[in-house]
């Protein structure tokens, strides 16, 4: 199934696209291994330098913030916990809601699906003040629970799980019923294993979503112990302008590169599941 005449053109466009995406990351990494003086004088780097361990060590261990108490490592841990919690709960809750919507044929299933769908229109940014009020009334500011809980419902994930469940043939459920499976067993023994790929993909999306949250942790946390990576990013890019020393550009890039690692980790761990699923559904 090839459209030959277009192939060469496509290749060129795609290779350009790849460069466009990969080069900035490489530049950032290369620059993060140089010392601040050479970056200041010579600009971004393409080749590796020699300050790798110094820059990365400083970023990870130097204490910062207004109280000079929080390290970047701490922020990575916070972001990781938050993203992990959000992603896990989002996936679990969405999979179960979708199950209820597809397999329990009560009269309200369609209106309820629409209501869930409509909540897409009210992202966290819009409902951020009411959410803050509730969470603070519950005494959850400056806790991981408070960071995670208001973000665990996902209309998007529910929608995609629903569409996926609908492609599973009815006979599978019927056969499972005759084999003595109740509704809970059907979910555990059939839907979850069959939707492995979907689960992995959703987990990755939601992890990145949680990881890149900015506004919510900003509002939720007053204690620097709960600061996250993205918040830290703003800080390292602003606080240094106030100093008299050189802008610490090398450390900044080191911070950016480090901030990419947790999501990469998640993909590496989940990719086996994911690739397996992709190959099985391959045409």
């Amino acid at each position, binding site marked *: 199934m090839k459209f030959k005449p277009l192939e060469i053109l496509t290749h060129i466009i795609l290779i350009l696209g790849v460069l466009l995406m990969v080069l900035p990351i490489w530049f950032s990494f290369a620059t993060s291994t140089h010392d601040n003086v050479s970056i200041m004088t010579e600009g971004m780097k393409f080749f590796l330098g020699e300050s790798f361990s110094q820059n990365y060590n400083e970023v990870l261990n130097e204490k910062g913030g207004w109280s000079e108490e929080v390290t970047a490592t701490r922020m990575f841990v916070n972001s990781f916990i938050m993203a992990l919690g959000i992603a896990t709960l989002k996936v679990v809750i969405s999979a179960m809601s979708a199950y209820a919507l597809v397999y329990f044929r009560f009269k309200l299933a369609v209106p309820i699906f629409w209501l869930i769908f409509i909540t897409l229109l009210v992202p966290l940014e819009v409902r951020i003040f009411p959410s803050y009020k509730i969470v603070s009334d519950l005494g959850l500011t400056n806790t991981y629970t408070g960071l995670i809980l208001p973000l665990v419902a996902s209309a998007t994930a529910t929608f995609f799980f629903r569409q996926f469940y609908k492609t599973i*043939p009815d*006979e599978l459920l*019927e056969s499972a*019923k*005759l084999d*003595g499976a*109740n509704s809970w*067993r059907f979910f555990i023994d*059939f839907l979850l294993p*069959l939707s492995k790929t979907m689960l992995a993909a959703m987990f990755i999306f939601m992890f990145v979503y949680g990881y890149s949250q900015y506004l919510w942790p900003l509002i939720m946390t007053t204690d620097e112990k709960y600061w996250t990576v993205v918040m830290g990013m703003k800080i390292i890019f602003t606080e240094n302008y106030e100093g008299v020393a050189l802008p610490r550009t090398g450390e900044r890039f080191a911070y950016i590169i480090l901030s990419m690692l947790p999501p990469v980790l998640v993909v590496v761990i989940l990719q086996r599941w994911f690739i397996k699923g992709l190959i099985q559904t391959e045409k």
Partner: protein
Amino acid sequence: MSFLELQNITKIYPNGTKAVNETSLNIENGEFVVFVGPSGCGKSTLLRMIAGLEDITNGEISLDGNVINNIDPSERDVAMVFQNYALYPHMSVFNNMAYGLKNRGISKEEINNKVNDVAKLLEIDQLLTRKPSMLSGGQRQRVAMGRAIVRNPKIFLFDEPLSNLDAKLRNQMRLEIKRLQRQMGVTSIFVTHDQTEAMTLGDRIVVINNGVVEQVGTPKEIYSKPNTKFVAEFIGSPQMNLFNCKIENGIAHIADIKINLNNSKNIEDASLGIRPDDILISDNGQHTCEANLVEYLGSDMIIYSKIGDQEFSCKLSSKINLNAGDTFKFDISSTLVHLFDNTNGSRV
């Protein structure tokens, strides 16, 4: 009291379609019954009501002395082989077969023994570790059978299980199903749209049309004495020729051909049926027709021709030399004829 009893079973879908209408049926223990009919006639719905996969609008089903109308499918102790097999794609063949047993809380050792025994019986013991996607059509079919057999249910339900196989394999599996059923003696219901499967498999056949049972009987009864015009046309391949005719004074008039029927009352609008292999072709036949099309089938051939504007077919040995365009002579014997009243389709 019969093993399985259906009493006035009716199924009406929420949109108002009546899929099954007031059907009553008794099935004895160990019997092999086939539901046959065209697609959409309600035969699958009836089967699914017995399995518990469809609600029953009206009527009562009892199995082994207990009314099962409101019993959950998982507790009816029936096993079903689906048209698409419905194998569990993420489980190995072993787990496909073991799943129902596990849910019944049977010990691991016993499950192992049972699955291995059945796998040997069906010659799939080499495949136990494979996933369904790695099996051929015939192997999937066997696994689906094995999954049903291993549970040792009260009743087997087959929902057109052969229709996804190719012709050769279908014949082979048909024989195998018949042998297995004989060997195990489990009451079985087999749904199909293929009259050949129905005739060869069933101890009794239930011919269904538009949600209504048209006739119940042994294959021989149904073939040799169809109760209605529908059954006459549906059972038998090539299908029975039905000529619209008028019967006066014991003589049927089909276009310009007259056939003498003994002792028949007058009918204004009748159908005279005769099976293609009951038309007697010989050089001194009374009637003459032209062969429009000849289908060669190996040992037999089928000739398509017309009386007046009514098409009909004859089946005869291919040793006879007859080509499209040739004329042939034939007789219709009154003893081989089936007569139906067109007003209600019933046998006269």
